[in-house]
């Protein structure tokens, strides 16, 4: 058992099927996604650490720990991320292990956190910021969009901005206003930023490390409803580069694409569709800026139909961008217009209504029916 991984997690959990719903159930061989077939680690070679079953929160914690161990310039900054370990406990234990000079409980000011992180990056640090909740990133919006995103171009490439901003985001947790939002499109719209969002523990473990290693600023959106379900994490192989998308279910009739927590919803929809005799392909976008269109276009060229699903508001969204681009690049393959399934264009409603607001497997399947009716 490698250090830093939850001691309670046993490799046998993987074989026992403890993997989360969102475990890629059908991956292409080259994608090296973790599977129960990966050998256990009873007597591993020193560098082989094997597959562990972790929640996404623990996987990110383990990834952050690797990054802190690997580069002394990596710093964590945020509100309540020290002794408390963050409100979602993603940084639990890290301030005890690395000290308050590496894990900073900063003053309570988001613009201040991002602005000082920019100064620290100018000094050669690699700050990793936690924004406590999605809806509280906006006080830092100015520093992110007018400063962080432009420092490299303003310095003619002589200065890099290796800053990661971790944002727990999305609904399904029944919380109060400003705690269930999906603001990723604002950042994907901004040149100079990179935006990613893992859907499962394995990707979260690797993507956080790759984001920290990136010399560009990365907005790292963590689907907070997926913090707790466990899944296999292969600690030896990432499988894919940071900005690659991945086919997580093969099918022939229609392609579904989404990111973050939506991937679990899409896989549920695919399961239901399969019972009805429909073969549905699911693509996990993983990277929202830049978008890796290769696997998506391949898929659409085979299925001829595409549904884009997202928790975010539909108007001027990531889904809109994908719909336009696929229409442009796969025009002759399309048998139906690209359809979008999104949160409504209203403020995220009171939590009692969130199941009406958030796209469900049924809402996705309704769009599948419409696409197939063309």
């Amino acid at each position, binding site marked *: 058992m490698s250090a830093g991984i939850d001691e309670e997690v046993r490799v046998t959990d993987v074989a026992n099927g403890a993997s989360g719903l969102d475990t890629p159930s059908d991956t292409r061989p080259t994608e090296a996604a973790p599977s129960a077939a990966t050998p256990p680690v009873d007597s591993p070679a020193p560098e082989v650490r094997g597959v562990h079953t972790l929640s996404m929160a623990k996987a990110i914690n383990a990834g952050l720990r690797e990054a802190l161990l690997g580069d002394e310039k990596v710093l964590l900054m945020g509100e309540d991320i020290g002794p408390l370990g963050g409100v979602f406990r993603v940084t639990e234990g890290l301030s005890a292990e690395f000290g308050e000079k590496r894990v900073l409980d900063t003053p309570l000011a988001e613009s201040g956190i991002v602005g000082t992180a920019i*100064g*620290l990056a100018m*000094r050669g640090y690699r700050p990793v910021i936690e924004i406590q909740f999605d809806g509280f990133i906006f006080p830092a919006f100015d520093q992110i969009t*007018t400063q962080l995103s432009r420092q490299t*171009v*303003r310095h*003619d490439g002589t200065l890099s901005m290796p800053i990661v901003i971790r944002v727990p985001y999305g609904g399904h947790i029944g919380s109060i206003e400003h705690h269930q939002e999906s603001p990723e499109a604002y950042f994907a719209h901004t040149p100079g930023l990179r935006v990613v969002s893992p859907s499962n523990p394995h990707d979260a473990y690797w993507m956080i490390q790759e984001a920290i290693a990136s010399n560009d600023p990365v907005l790292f959106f963590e689907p907070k409803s997926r913090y707790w379900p466990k899944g296999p994490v292969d600690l030896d192989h990432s499988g894919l580069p940071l900005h690659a998308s991945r086919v997580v279910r093969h099918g022939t009739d229609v392609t579904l694409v989404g990111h973050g927590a939506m991937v679990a919803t899409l896989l549920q929809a695919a399961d239901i569709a399969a019972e009805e005799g429909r073969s549905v392909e699911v693509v996990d976008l993983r990277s929202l800026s*830049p978008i890796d269109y290769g696997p998506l276009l391949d898929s659409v060229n085979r299925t001829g139909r595409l549904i884009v699903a997202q928790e975010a508001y539909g108007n001027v969204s990531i889904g809109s961008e994908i719909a336009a681009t696929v229409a442009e690049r796969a025009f002759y393959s399309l048998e139906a217009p690209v359809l979008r399934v999104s949160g409504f264009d209203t403020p995220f409603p009171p939590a009692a209504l969130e199941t009406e607001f958030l796209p469900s497997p049924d809402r996705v399947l309704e769009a599948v029916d419409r696409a197939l009716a063309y």
Partner: protein
Amino acid sequence: MPASERDFTAPTVQLLTPEGELRATPEAEAYLPLIEALDDATLQRFHRDMTVSRRLDVAGANLQRQGQLALWVPSLGQEAAQVGSAHAARPQDHIFPSYREHIVGMIRGLDPVRIMALLRGTTLGGWNPEETGNFHLYTLVLASQTLHSTGYAMGLQFDGATATGDPDADAAVLVYYGDGSTSQGDANEALVFASSYQTPQVFFIQNNQWAISVPVSRQSRSPLSLRGGGFGMPGIRIDGNDVLISYAVTRQALEEARAGEGPTLIEALTYRMGAHTTADDPTKYRTDAEVEYWQQRDPIARYRTWLESRGASAAFFAEVDEEASDIAADVRRRALEITVPTREKIFAHVYSEAHPLMVEQAAWLDAFENSFDGGAE
């Protein structure tokens, strides 16, 4: 609360009177030894730099009027605040300017043509701080740089690059911003972080009485220097048109910062004698009488009087004037030679690492331009 308790005042620390006499106010006495330690060459350099700044303002405004610059941002009237504080910094210090501190940059080794390139619209930045004496880029979103400077100062601390006890190695950070900018959230958050982390840092507010057309009274009912105390750091109000006090108070504050004693806020009372920028018309919002009042307090005239009283010759002043004119002429000549960058520049450094949209869009633009007869450059 009685009205008297709603009255906030702070003494203005001053060494040189507007008439050019060295007469320290009570709070200024402690700074006299710092001035006494300066040699004649340094004292003359202050005059030279203020004169160069003023001469460059004329050149910049002319270039703008002739359509050679999109904009010129003058420092007229603020020369003492800028020159004194800039000379207070040591080579290892880092300076974060707003957008008006041309002479500060030049003192640190910045070629002013780089500023012209920025205002001519050929770059978004213009220089590499590593090559300009740690003089960082101008920042146009007001007060954003205050947070960057505080983060940088935190980094100095984390690196152990400050407070080791060696003043020739220990570094500090000096950040400039304006009276209007003090109302920005970032300016206040920077003070919070600086105080919390006890950064090696000096906040230098040039209170030039105006934020474009809005007087400082709209930003604050009390002296801005008092904000230091509210955040847990000393705040000092100085006569910003007195180059000696500007030097001495900044010097002292930077030395304290590098020794690990924490940040200081300085409010330099000065006046923007010209327009906000060449796009502004100050006659719409302020009176001639106000401008005349400040003309009586001109920073260069009073310093010249003082230097004369110490025996500086007419020949010295004539020499400085000539040098300033030569510099301005040279900058003007080279500004006119600044060329338009090639179109790759749009895409070249948006990211540090390869990005597919940059590659695709640069290639598309090339193909588009080349599709015209002869291929446009």
